[in-house]
C-alpha cells in the first residue's frame, strides 16, 4: 500500500533525518557515485596497410627523402623498406608508426577508420548547446537504484534547510507545536502542491522554508496566528499554478526580498489578528493570488521592485484579514474584487504621473507604492458603502496618487533636497493619511491638499533646522483637527492655503534670534490651533490675503523686546496667545476696523513699556498674559489707535497690572 505523504509524516521523518544524517549522507554519496559519467573508448584503428606500398614509394621520391631527413628518419627508412610489413621486428614497426602520419600529412589524406563510419552519429558528437548534451554520447551509465524522488527530494530539502539555518536545533524547531505547525502549513500549502522533481521549485521551497525558520527560529512565541502564513503559502501556490514560470519569478522576487523574514513575522503578529480570517482564508488566498497574477501580467516592472511587491502583498493580506467583504468579494457582475482592481488603478495612475514628472517616477516606488495601496485600502474599509458604485474606487485611487504627486512636485518640498528624503516624507505622509481613513475616504482631495499645505508650511518655517518628526507630527495634528472639526472640512482648499500663509508669515518675520526651528514649528502649530478654533474667520482672512501680513505683523511686534525676555518658549506662548486673539477678533480685521501698522506700533510700544515694569511689578513669566491683554484692549478700542501709543498704554496698563495682581493673589 503506498504511503500517503502528509506534512506530519514529512516533519517527523525530517526529525529522523537530522538525527541520522551521517548515514543518509553515506547512502546518498554511494548513489552519487553511480551517476553516469563520460568515458572515451580506446582509439579506433585506421586502415593503413592498404596504403603501405604507396607510402614506401613516396619516401623514395626526392620530396619524401627530404621529409625523412627533416625528421631524422633516413636511416630508419632504409631498414624499414627491407620488410615494410614486418610485425616481428620492433624497430621496423616503430619506424612504420612514425612514417605513416608524415605520409598522410604530405598526401593530405586520412585513412579510413576500421570501425563505425555511419555519419548519423557524427551530428551528436561534441555538439550541442550545453555540456550535458555534448557529453551524452560518451556517458557510461551505472546501475541506478530504484527511487522515490519527489518524496525524498522534499525530505532532503527540508532537512538540509533546517540544518543550514538552525543546525542541530532543526529537530527542536519541528518539535515545538507552533513552529512545527508553520512548517506543516508550508508543506501542505506549498511544497506538496508543487513539482518536487523540479529543481527550481525545490529552490523556491528551500528559500521559503529558510526564511520561515529565520523568522521564527529564535522565538517560536512570535508565531501568533498561522493562518496568515497559510494564506501566503497558498497564494504563492496559486500564482505559480496559474502563471507557470512567471509565477516562479514572482515568488522568487518576493521570497528573496530584503525584509521577507520581518514580513512573515508581521503577518502572524499584526496582520492576522482578526479571527474571521480563519474562515475566509481560502477566499483571501484566491483574491490575493488573483491580485498577484494581475501584477505579473499587467505590471511586470513591479517584480523588479521587491520592496514594493512585498509591501503590496502585506497590505493586501492585512486588508483581507481585517476588512469587510467589500474588499474581497467580486464587484457587480462578478468583476474583479476591489483588492485587486484598486491596486491596478493605483499602479496605472502612478505610471501616468511618472510619465509626466520624473521626480514622481523616482519617488513612487519601494515602500511608497504599498503606502498608497494601504492608505487606500484602509480608507475603503472605513467606508465601504461609498465605494460600491462602479469606478468610484478607481477615481479615488487616481485622486490620491495625483494629490501625492502634487505634494511632491511643489517648490517648497523640492528644497528638502534628495529624492530619498522626499521618498521618506511621502511614506510617512501616507502613514499619516492611513491614520485618518475616514477623512481620506470622505474628503480625499481635501486631505491630500491639507497635508501638502502643512508640509509645505512646515518646510518653510523650519528651514535648515528641519526635523522630519516634527513636521509629520504637525501634519498628523492638522489631519486630526480636520477630522474632529467639521467646520474645517468646509474650508476645503482654503484651510491649507491659510496654514501655508501662516507659515510664510512666520518665515518672513525672520525669528532666528527669538526661536529655533522647533520653536518656529511650535508657532506654526499655534497657527493651526488658532485656525481650527475659528475656521470661518480664517477662511475669510485668507480670502482677503490677510493671514500672512497679520501673522508677520504680530510676530514682528514681539521682536521689539530689547532685553531678550521674549525668546524661546515665552515667545511662542505670547505669539500663540496673539494668534488665538486673532481668532476671536478676526472679524474686526475683515471689516477693516483695525489698521495693522497702527496695531503693530501699539504693540511695540507695549512691549517696550513692559520692559520698564520688569523687576518693579512683573517678571518675564507675566509677559505673555500682559501682551495678550494689551493687544485685546487695543483691538477692542479701534478708535484709540489714532492716539499716541504711549499715552494709551500708560492708561490701560495699571488696570491690567491690577488684574494680574488679583490673579496672582488667587494663585
Amino acid at each position, binding site marked *: 500500500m503506498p504511503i500517503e505523504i502528509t506534512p506530519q*509524516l514529512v516533519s517527523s521523518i525530517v*526529525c529522523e533525518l537530522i538525527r541520522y544524517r551521517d*548515514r543518509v549522507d553515506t547512502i546518498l*554519496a554511494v548513489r552519487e557515485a553511480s551517476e553516469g559519467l*563520460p568515458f572515451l573508448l580506446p582509439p579506433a584503428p585506421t586502415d593503413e596497410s592498404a596504403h603501405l606500398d604507396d607510402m614506401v614509394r613516396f619516401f623514395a621520391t626526392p620530396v619524401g627523402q627530404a621529409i625523412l631527413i627533416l625528421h631524422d628518419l633516413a636511416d630508419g627508412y632504409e631498414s624499414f623498406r627491407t620488410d615494410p610489413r614486418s610485425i616481428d621486428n620492433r624497430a621496423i614497426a616503430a619506424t612504420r608508426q612514425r612514417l605513416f602520419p608524415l605520409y598522410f600529412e604530405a598526401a593530405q589524406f586520412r585513412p579510413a577508420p576500421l570501425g563505425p563510419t555511419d555519419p548519423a*552519429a557524427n551530428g551528436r558528437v561534441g555538439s550541442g548547446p550545453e555540456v550535458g548534451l555534448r*557529453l551524452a554520447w560518451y556517458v557510461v551509465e551505472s*546501475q541506478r537504484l530504484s527511487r522515490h524522488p519527489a518524496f525524498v527530494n522534499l525530505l532532503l530539502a527540508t532537512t538540509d534547510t533546517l540544518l*543550514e539555518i538552525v543546525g542541530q536545533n532543526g529537530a527542536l524547531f519541528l518539535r515545538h507545536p507552533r513552529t512545527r505547525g508553520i512548517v506543516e502549513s508550508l508543506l501542505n500549502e506549498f511544497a506538496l502542491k508543487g513539482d518536487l522533481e523540479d529543481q527550481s521549485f525545490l529552490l523556491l521551497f528551500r528559500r521559503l522554508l529558510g526564511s520561515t525558520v529565520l523568522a521564527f527560529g529564535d522565538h517560536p512565541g512570535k508565531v501568533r496566528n498561522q493562518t496568515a502564513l497559510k494564506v501566503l503559502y497558498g497564494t504563492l501556490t496559486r500564482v505559480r499554478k496559474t502563471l507557470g514560470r512567471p509565477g516562479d519569478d514572482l515568488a522568487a522576487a518576493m521570497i528573496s526580498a530584503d525584509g521577507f523574514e520581518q514580513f512573515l513575522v508581521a503577518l502572524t503578529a499584526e496582520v492576522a489578528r482578526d479571527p474571521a480570517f480563519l474562515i475566509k482564508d481560502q477566499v483571501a488566498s484566491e483574491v490575493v493570488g488573483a491580485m498577484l497574477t494581475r501584477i505579473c501580467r499587467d505590471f511586470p516592472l513591479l517584480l523588479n521592485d521587491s520592496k514594493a511587491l512585498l509591501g503590496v502583498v502585506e497590505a493586501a493580506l492585512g486588508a483581507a484579514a481585517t476588512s469587510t467583504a467589500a474588499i474581497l468579494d467580486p464587484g457587480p457582475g462578478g468583476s474583479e474584487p476591489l483588492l485587486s482592481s484598486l491596486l491596478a488603478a493605483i499602479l496605472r495612475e502612478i505610471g501616468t504621473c511618472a510619465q509626466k514628472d520624473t521626480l514622481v517616477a523616482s519617488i513612487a516606488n519601494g515602500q511608497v507604492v504599498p503606502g498608497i495601496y494601504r492608505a487606500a485600502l484602509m480608507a475603503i474599509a472605513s467606508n465601504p458603502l461609498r465605494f460600491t458604485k462602479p469606478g468610484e474606487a478607481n477615481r479615488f485611487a487616481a485622486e490620491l496618487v495625483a494629490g501625492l504627486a502634487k505634494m511632491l512636485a511643489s517648490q517648497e518640498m523640492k528644497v528638502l533636497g534628495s529624492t530619498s528624503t522626499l521618498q521618506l516624507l511621502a511614506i510617512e505622509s501616507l502613514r499619516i493619511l492611513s491614520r485618518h481613513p475616514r477623512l481620506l475616504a470622505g474628503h480625499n482631495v481635501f486631505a491630500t491638499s491639507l497635508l501638502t499645505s502643512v508640509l509645505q508650511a512646515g518646510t518653510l518655517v523650519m528651514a535648515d533646522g528641519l526635523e522630519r518628526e516634527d513636521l509629520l507630527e504637525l501634519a498628523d495634528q492638522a489631519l486630526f483637527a480636520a477630522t474632529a472639526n467639521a467646520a474645517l472640512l468646509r474650508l476645503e482648499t482654503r484651510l491649507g492655503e491659510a496654514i501655508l500663509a501662516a507659515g510664510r508669515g512666520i518665515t518672513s518675520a525672520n525669528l532666528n534670534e527669538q526661536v529655533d526651528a522647533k520653536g518656529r514649528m511650535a508657532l506654526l502649530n499655534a497657527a493651526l490651533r488658532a485656525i481650527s478654533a475659528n475656521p470661518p474667520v480664517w477662511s475669510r482672512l485668507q480670502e482677503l490675503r490677510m493671514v500672512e501680513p497679520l501673522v508677520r505683523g504680530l510676530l514682528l511686534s514681539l521682536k521689539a523686546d530689547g532685553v531678550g525676555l521674549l525668546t524661546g518658549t515665552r515667545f511662542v506662548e505670547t505669539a500663540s496667545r496673539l494668534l488665538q486673539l486673532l481668532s476671536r477678533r478676526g472679524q474686526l480685521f475683515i471689516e477693516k476696523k483695525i489698521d495693522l501698522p497702527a496695531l503693530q506700533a501699539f504693540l511695540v510700544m507695549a512691549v517696550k513699556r513692559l520692559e520698564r515694569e520688569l523687576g518693579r511689578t512683573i517678571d518675564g513669566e507675566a509677559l505673555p498674559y500682559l501682551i495678550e491683554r494689551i493687544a485685546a484692549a487695543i483691538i477692542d478700542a479701534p478708535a484709540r489707535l489714532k492716539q499716541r501709543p504711549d499715552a494709551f498704554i500708560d492708561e490701560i496698563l495699571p488696570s491690567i497690572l491690577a488684574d494680574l495682581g488679583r490673579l496672582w493673589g488667587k494663585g
Partner: protein
Amino acid sequence: MLKPIRRYALPLLFLSLLLQSISCARLTPRTTALRQIHQTYRGEFDQYLQLTVPAPPADGTMSLRSKGAENFAPAPFAATLREIRAYRIKYGEDSRESAHLTVLEGMIYLQTGQLGMARLLLPDLRQAADNLGQGNGAAVRDRLLAQNFESLLAGWTAIREPETRDSARRLAEAAGSIGTRLAAPDRPGAAQVSEPEVDEGAIYLATSAAIFYAWVGKILSLQTREDRPCWCAKGMALIAPHLSQAERRIARGIDYQSISAGRIRYLGWYNSLALCAGERPIDNCHERLKQ
C-alpha cells in the same frame, strides 16, 4: 504521535537509498563534494574533447591522431584530480565512494595517455574492486572497471606501441581477459553482470575489448587480411550479449535518433564489426596468433 511514525521513519530512511539527487551541503556534505567532483570532471572532459579531438570521429572513440595529454595544457583533468585528493583527505580512503573515485582517477589516466600513472594505481584499483560490490551481488560499472582495469591498461598501452605481433598478442589477451570476466556469471564467486539497459559498465568493457580485437585484426592485416573477419567476429561476439534484442536486430542504416545517445557508439561498433566479419565464423585465428 512520533512513535508510530518512527516505526516507518527508519524504513523510509532507506527509501533515501532510492534518492534523486539534490544539493544538500549541510545534510550531505560528502554527497555534495562528490557531486562537485563529477561536475568538474564533466566540464574537463568536455574541454578535453574540444582541445584534443578537433574532428570527432564517427564512432565516439579517441582519434588516433589525437595527441592526447601531450598537447593539453594545463595538465588534463587537473581540477578533478585535485578535488579527488581533497575528498580523500577530508573523508578518508576506505569508503565505497572513495573506491569509486579511485576508478575515476584510473580512467582519467587511461584516457589521457598517462599510462604510467595508471599503472601506479593498479594496487589501489584491485582493492577498490572488492569495495565496490553491490548488496545483491550484481557487478556494476565501477566494479567492472576496477576488475578489468589491468586488461584495459594493457590494451590501451599496446595500442600506443609499435604494431608488432607481440602488441597484437597483448591486445588479444587483454580483450580475451575482459571477455572471460564478463561472460562468467555462472563461475562460482563471480558477480552477476547487471542488466545492460541499466548498467553500461559491461558493454563499455565489451566494446573496449572488441576494439582491441579490431586492432589485432588491423596489425595482422599488414601481413594478411585473411584473419581480420575472424577478429571482427570475436569483437562482435563480445558486444552482442550486452545489447538488447531490439538493438541486435537493428541493421545498418539505423536511425540513430531513435536510440539513446549513450548506446549509439556501442551499436556503431557492433554494426561495423558485423560488416567486417561478414559470414565468417569465429575459427581458430586466436590460436594462429599464438603461434
